[in-house]
Structures are given as C-alpha cells and as structure tokens.
C-alpha cells in the first residue's frame, strides 16, 4: 500500500450543468502530490462539483484537469475514452457524505469494490477474488481498525464505522488521490474527529493526495495543510491554513461567523 500521490492541475475549469446552472467559474488550482487540502464554502458554492470533476463524475465544460498522466477535457466531443476514464478513476478513491455502501452485503464485499477495475468480468460476476486482492482489502480494513467486522453486514455498523469501511474501500484501490465529499456531515462530533484523523494519517503515512470538502471551519483548520475557499463557484481564497483568518472565512461565507460554522461549540477560530 505504499504508493506516492499524484499532482492535480486544474486549469480555468468551468462547469455548467445541462439545466443551465453554472457551478464553477474559471477555477485554477495546483495541488502537489501528498498534500491535504480542505475545500470550504457554503452549500451550493461548488465544493461537491469541484471534487467530482477530478474523477470525471461531473464532466467539465471548459478548461482542463491533469491528474498524473491523465488529462480531462471538456465533454464537447468526449472527455476521455471510457477505458482511460476507468483507469483514472481506479487511481482516485472517493468518500461520500452518505457512505454509499451496499448495506445488504458484507463489509469485505463492499471493500472489494476497490478492485473492480483490476479484475476481469468473470471474477467480478462470481465474486472470485484472488488471494492478493482479499489481502489488500484486509490490510485496508486493518488500517482503519475495523478488520474485525470484515464478515458482518454493512447495515449492522454504526455511521462512523460505515464511513471507515468506505475509506478502506478507497484504500483497496491503492489510490494516488482521495476525494472526500463532506465525509463527516452525517456523523456526530467525536466520530467526525476519528474519520478526519484517518484521512490525515492516510495522507501523511501513504503520501496520498487528499481533497476534502468540509462544512465546519474548525475541522478544516485542524486537519488540513491548505484551504481553498469557494463562493458562488469561484476560488476566493487559496493558501496555507495559517493564513485563513476569521475575516477570510467571513468573506467565504458572505456573512459573520456563527456557532453553526464550527463542529465543537466553544472552539475559537
């Protein structure tokens, strides 16, 4: 599971959805391999759209995104041959707000999804995974300290445990980048810290580039090296966490800060 992260270069990216809503305008970011970047902003600011463009879940309408050797272009003709897109996605793990597990099946089966790209159709159909792939999955579960639940149904796990299974699923991909879209928004405060620490450790131990959308400012400050502030689809702040003062946050949020913007009440920014 030792693999270095990938650089991400986002150049003048714009996204306009088919219904005419423009979610991103002229976004440019350079994210070096192994960095942990927090993306903050109000809901509707384009955080989710931004991370989803990086693995092609949302096609961009202008600009380019380079991730390692892959380049994503606007979907005018076709953004990328589907085989190459799958290859790119296999190197990018994604963590979702609502965990997105198959609740009816075992934790291990869920984690094996991370090996989909690397297995032929017959193995997928029969769920006949190779020993090496199962080993990868078990190691990933060990890393998030949940391997004892490997054969339990995903539905029987708590929210925090489910999110850690989802993180193990991405680790099983042996990813170079992990995208986390509001990974703690459905969790209680103590569990949120556990999940954020997992992501931070993955970034520092494995050198995987991590992009995480966050709603809570204190979490962003505590766990990320760098912050990107989005407002109405535009980057209005990009810099080290230390430079993100209260006035910067007020600009990102377009209003003065309140207790609702931090996870742990009483924490001062």
């Amino acid at each position, binding site marked *: 599971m030792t693999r270095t992260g990938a650089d991400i270069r986002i150049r003048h990216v714009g996204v306009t959805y088919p219904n005419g809503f423009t979610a991103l305008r002229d976004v440019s970011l350079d994210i070096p391999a192994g960095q942990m970047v927090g993306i903050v902003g109000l809901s509707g600011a384009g955080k989710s759209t931004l991370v989803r463009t990086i*693995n092609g879940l949302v096609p961009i309408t202008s600009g380019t995104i380079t991730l390692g050797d892959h380049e994503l272009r606007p979907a005018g003709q076709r953004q990328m041959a589907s085989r190459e897109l799958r290859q790119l996605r296999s190197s990018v793990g994604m963590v979702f707000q609502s965990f997105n597990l198959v609740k009816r099946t075992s934790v291990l*089966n869920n984690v094996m999804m991370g090996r989909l790209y690397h297995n032929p159709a017959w193995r*997928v159909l029969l769920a006949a995974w190779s020993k090496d792939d199962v080993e990868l999955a078990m190691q990933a579960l060990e890393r998030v300290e949940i391997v004892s639940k490997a054969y339990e149904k995903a539905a029987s796990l708590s929210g925090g445990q489910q999110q850690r299974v989802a993180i193990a699923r991405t680790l099983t991909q042996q990813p170079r980048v992990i995208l986390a879209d509001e990974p703690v928004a459905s969790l209680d405060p103590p569990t949120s810290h556990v999940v954020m620490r997992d992501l931070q450790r993955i970034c520092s131990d494995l050198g995987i580039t991590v992009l995480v959308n966050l709603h809570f400012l204190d979490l962003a400050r505590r766990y990320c090296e760098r912050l990107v502030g989005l407002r109405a689809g535009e980057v209005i702040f990009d810099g080290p966490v230390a430079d993100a003062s209260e006035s910067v946050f007020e600009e990102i949020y377009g209003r003065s800060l309140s207790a609702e913007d931090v996870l742990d009440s009483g924490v001062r920014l």
Partner: protein
Amino acid sequence: MIPVDGSGQRPTARPSRPDHRLRTGIVIVLVMAITVWSARGIDVDPAAILANWPNAVGNLVQLFQPDYSFFPQTLPALVETLQMAVIATAVGSALSLPLAFGASRAANPNLTVLRVVRFVMNLVRSVPDILYAAILVAIVGVGALAGILALVLFNIGIIVKLVSEALDGQDLGAQEAALAAGGSWFGANRMSLLPQILPSFASQVLYTFELNIRASTVIGLVGAGGLGLLIDNVRNYFLYHYLSLIIVEILVLVVLLEGFSSWLRKKLL
C-alpha cells in the same frame, strides 16, 4: 380585516373548493354507456342460466362428489404439472435477471439498448400465456415442452417488469461509488445493485412459481401437458366426478405452495 391570531398579520385567504361535478358526471355517464354497449353487443341473457338449470344441477351434484379412486391415474399429470412449473421458473428467472438490468434506467446507461429491451418485453408481456401455449403446441407438438416454453415466456414478461422496477427504485449511492472506483457498468451493477435487489428478485421468483402452478393447469387445456391436458380429456367425456377430483387436487396444491412461498418470502424481505 381583523387579524385572527393576534400576530398582526392577515390570515391567508382560503382557497375555494374546486368544482369537479361536471367532470365526474361525464365520466360516470361514459362508463355506464360503455358497459351497456358491451352487454348489448354480446347479447347477455340472464335467462340462459335458468333455462340450463336442470342440466346444471346434475353436473353440480357430480362436481361435489369427487371420485377419489381416480387419484392414482392423475398422479403422473400432477407430477408433470409440478415439474413444468419448476423447470419454467428456473429457466425463466435465469433469463430474466440480465434482461431486468437491461430494462432498468438505473442500471443501463445505453438508451438504445434500454428502449429495445423495454419494447420487446412489452411485446412479450402483452401475449397471454394460453396463446403462447396454443402457438407453441403448433410448433413443437402436444406435450410438456410446449407448456414449459409458454411458461418461460410468461415468466420473463413478469419478472423482468417487476425486477427492473425494483432496480429503478434502488438507492444509487453504492453504484456511484463503484463507478467512481473505476468499475465498469457491469461490475458496478453486479457489486452494488445485485445484492440490493436479490431478496426482491427471489420473492418475484417464488411468486411466479405460484402463478406457474395455476397457469400450467390452464395451458394444458390447449395441449401443453400436465393436469390441464387431463382436464381436457375427462371433460370431453363428461366425467365430472373425475374433473371434480382434479379441481380439488389443484386447489390443495395451490394453497399449499402459496402458503409455503409466502412464508419463504416473508423470511426473505
């Protein structure tokens, strides 16, 4: 106007009750007109029941006195009916599963294939089972094979419809996660949607098995094997004591199997 609740705000005006009386009246008159027209068209004469009464009483008396000594001779046909239903259910559901994914908007991203599969399935479903049996008897000859083929077509029509609707109703989060991990649509559907719909698929299979027991008796009337073929024979010779036994057998079989399958379905869901 005086504010009612003392909040200083005028209460919102209540909407007036919409008037549907004319529309309801037209619908009632139309439905009645169609019914009267239908009855006149086929020359319904309730007096026929009375005219045929003496004859009917004789037959009814025989029908209420099943001849149990006939039982050993019905056994082969009874077993054949069961076997037809089992084979048709097995083959029909095996063919239905991939087709259901093809007919589901959630599982099949290819619109052309989706439309073709749905169109063909609508055709398959629009033909009644007894018509399939009649046609197939003409093609493959009198016997169980025609019956089995007819039931298979009948089963595909039902299962594909119900399972593809179940697929469309699923939460697509896990599928999105599988696609984001680099899985193909096939791989993503196999890993995420299949485990989710398996219980409802199994329940539909049991339900069609029940239908098959009943249907296999009816399609036998046109020569497609099983108890139906036997019914046709004894009826032609007016052996109502025998017919009555066969009806009792079907009744017992259907009640037992329905009880068993509804018990099993409850355990599944």
